[in-house]
């Protein structure tokens, strides 16, 4: 069984495991391919048994790599691809099995989304037109608008777009446009929030803006505080995937041992 963590986040170290059971046969080779290009092999009869074949995006840590696993030091965007491990027994049969798995590599936004285009004061009957733009990421972040902490429904006019940059990262943009009613104000204030998220890696960051009724003043200090708390939240969220990967790997090895019974 092949265990390839996916998605991984750029900068991580990942271990790919290929667990097999030779069922009494002698091992000739374990070959690792990324996108059908060999980058590592473990041949017990060769010296050294573990050999690294340089490949862009794959930096193998030979010291940690073993018969049934490969350790990739720093995940980069190029690290993404289809990984295959191929196990062959010794002569004369050279019985060969292989398994494939794809690894996706994510890049999280370095900062939270930003709300632009809002006025400080609105009156009932005004049309609010605001944009929310996320920072660059891969894949593109999903954006959502909240009014007074309530997610806008389908009756609000929103337009989503993404922009792909040369480095392979994307920027998402979600515009919001609506007519203000008296219901939008609570105590003369209306809170607008844009939330950016990337699924599977539990990344969420948001930006908030307070809009005051014509009669009310916009409180800017409050806005800054909110931004800080957002940063803190982000750090917490970043730590979470690493923990998850560890947990997953141990689970994988368990499954692999089961798989090799089949082989």
């Amino acid at each position, binding site marked *: 069984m092949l265990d390839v963590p996916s998605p991984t986040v750029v900068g991580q170290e990942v271990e790919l495991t290929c667990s097999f059971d030779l069922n009494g046969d002698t091992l000739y080779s374990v070959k690792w391919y990324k996108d*059908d290009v060999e980058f590592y092999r473990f041949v017990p009869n060769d010296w050294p048994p573990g050999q690294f074949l340089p490949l862009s995006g794959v930096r193998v840590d030979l010291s940690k790599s073993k018969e049934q696993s490969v350790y990739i030091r720093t995940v980069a965007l190029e690290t993404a691809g289809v990984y295959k491990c191929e196990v062959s027994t010794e*002569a004369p049969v050279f019985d*060969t099995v292989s398994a494939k798995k794809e690894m996706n590599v994510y890049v999280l936004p370095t900062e939270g989304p930003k709300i632009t285009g809002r006025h400080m004061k609105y009156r009932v009957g005004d049309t609010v037109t605001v944009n929310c733009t996320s920072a660059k990421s891969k894949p593109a972040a999903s954006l959502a608008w909240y009014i007074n902490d309530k997610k806008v429904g389908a009756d609000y006019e929103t337009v989503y777009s993404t922009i792909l940059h040369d480095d392979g990262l994307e920027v998402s943009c979600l515009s919001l446009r609506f007519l203000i009613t008296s219901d939008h104000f609570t105590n003369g204030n209306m809170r607008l929030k844009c939330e950016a998220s990337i699924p599977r890696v539990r990344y969420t960051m948001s930006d908030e803006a307070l809009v005051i009724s014509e009669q009310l003043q916009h409180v800017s200090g409050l806005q800054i505080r909110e931004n800080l708390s957002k940063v803190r939240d982000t750090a917490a969220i970043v730590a979470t995937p690493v923990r998850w990967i560890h947990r997953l790997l141990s689970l994988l090895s368990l499954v692999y041992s089961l798989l090799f019974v089949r082989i």
Partner: protein
Amino acid sequence: MTAVEDRSISLPCNVSFPAGDYAISLVLWFRGDSGVPIYSLDARNGSIYKAFHFTDDILGTRAYFDLTSRPPLLKIAPVKKKDEGEYECRVDYRRARTEKWRAHVRVIVPPKNAVIKDAQGKRVEGIIGPFNDGDMLALSCEAEGDPIPNVTWWRDSTLLDGDYSVTPGGIVRNELLIKRLHRDHLMSVLTCQASNTNLSVPVFRSVTLDINLKPLEVRISTVNRPLLAGQQVELVCQSSGSRPPARILWWKGSEKMSNISYTRNDNVTISKLTFTPTIQDHEIYLSCKADNPVFSNSALEDGWIITVYHLPMLRLSLGANIQHDSIREGSDVYFDCNIQANPWVSEVGWRFEGKTLFSDTKTGIIISNQTLVLQKVTRERRGRYQCVAANVVGEAESEEIILRVHYAPVCKSGQKTVFGVDRLESVNIRCETLADPSDLTFYWSLNNTFERIELHSFITNGTVSKITYRPRTRYGYGVLNCWARNEIGIQKEPCHFSIIPAGRPEPVKKCEVLNNTMTTIEIECEAGYNGGLKQDFHLDVFNYPLETLEANLTNNNTPSFTVNNLPPGTTFIFAIYSLNSKGKSHSVALTASTLPTPEKRTAKIERPGISPVLGILIGIVGALVLLAILTVAIMRYKHHEENKGPGEQDIVNKHHTPFQKDIDEGLDSDTREPDVIPALAVDSQEKNGGIETGSDSCQSAHNGKGRPRDFTVLQSKSFGTTSVSVPEDTQGMSYSEVSGTASQVSDAVKPTNSPIDFGFYNKARSLVFQPDQEDECNITVETPLMEPMSYMPERHGVNSVINQRNKVSTSV
């Protein structure tokens, strides 16, 4: 890549093959999803060329990985269907990155197991059938292959059926249906073709159709022309188009004919009918029917109405009203010619005794188409009658009918009518008559100037009556009449038989040399009157130059002789005379020569033709002179010896000369007159040989009685002179009245013995004894061998006149 089953394929492993540390350590070939390599090459322990090759059970020895080629090739041969699939070659290097090359191999299975089946599902091949013309034909063709082959039906280059279906078992089937087989399908080749890809060779399977066919035509090829009855003909009928060849039957009307021969080839039948038509076959329908027994309604027919010609068939009959037994002279007779002929006769003819009859109203012959009328028939009309008729086939004649005509008796001609009889001598006389019916009663009578006596003693046998007659006195001579009677009537003109006193025969006549060769001479004469008695004929042959008797011959019946064994190139004198019991006739002499031998003959040709004649003449002159001297001598001697008997005289005479054979022994005692010396006269005549010395029937002046008798040469003193003496004769008085005056003139010559004739001596018929005309007698002499010559009898001072060549007319 595509491979064809049972052929080979070379799979490239298109990777780099560096040397050194990057050299190959292991090559693995995989097929499909299986993780077990089908082929491995393990070079980890040394050179790749000493590497260890290993194949799985499926490839076995069929595969070899050839590293020497670039790219290296995995060669599989023969390829099997199970070799199909995805192939991957993995090359492990010692140091370099592992490389892989993938290829897909498609294995084509060529079409196979193509079979053709008939409607019953039975497998067929080659020539199939025979089917019948018009039948439906269903064939199916099945084949297998991968990919599924196109199974198509073809006839030559024409696609017949391109639709096929695939059974669940993977068999492709194309069902061909020909709704109606016809003539054009015969021996056509139907081919089923199964093909799948261009790489494989299509498979063919063929059948050839055999078809039973109806005949297309039947024709009597012999030209329809009239046939001849009884003549065998061969008629030819031919039929084509039938398969198997047609059966041909011949029919004549409703009668099936036999005697048929056949020739069959391919689809033509020729039938020959050998057929002898009869008259009854005329206008009968003759047909030739051809059919193919396989089909019930395939018969064709050709026929003729034949025309049969035949020879006319004639049936001759007497007219219906005529009783054949009652036809007598003067009756009218008619014949009918009943004719059956096809085509009709062009003309009808009639024959009597084999000679064609023509209409002649004068003689009462009327020919009218198929009837012959004979008016007032005479007995000459008796005989065989036939009718003849001709058409294009030929001429035919009827049976003969022999016509009988009853008639009163008539005397049969050609009977001996003169009988010389001595007194008291008996003679048998036959009287033959012709009569129908032949039941006759005869009558005989003797007529002469004195009396007419009925005779009764005779024998009758049918139409012949015989009497034995003996004149007792001179009144017993005369004419015997004989006549008969039958139921038609009495004989109108009796048969006459003259009974005359018998005498010596007359000389022979018209002698001629018929043929002469070197050794043979043939002579033929006509017999003269026999003197009323049986005569025979004698020939003496004298060798002229040798003057010897060469031969003598006798002929009892006719005066004709063939003298053989004569010396060639010699001249002979031939003396011919007749002899009866009364004596001998005068001799007739002629000369002839045998032909010379060929050599001599050539030499003799140059001589003048006249020379032998001259020689003969000279000889004769000499002989005559001698004779004359001799005669004088004898006469004197005779005078001297006159009192001696005649017998002695004869003896003397015989001694006198070798030629004296012709002594006239036949002389009557009446004629032996003392003044005549017959022996000498004869001698003289004989001696004279070829010269005509005789005078004929000349009446001597003093013989007033006019009885011609022997004329004897008395004396001739010199050549050309003869004296004729007529013996005194009282014969006329010594006999009965037979030689009556009435018949004297014409019969006068007959009893006369002629002197020697020479050559072609014609006693002219005009030479009439004239009792009143003295001293004159005409003689005509023909001498073919001699020049005309004048001849003067001394005694009468004769003028001789040359009438014409070879003829001398002499007045005496």
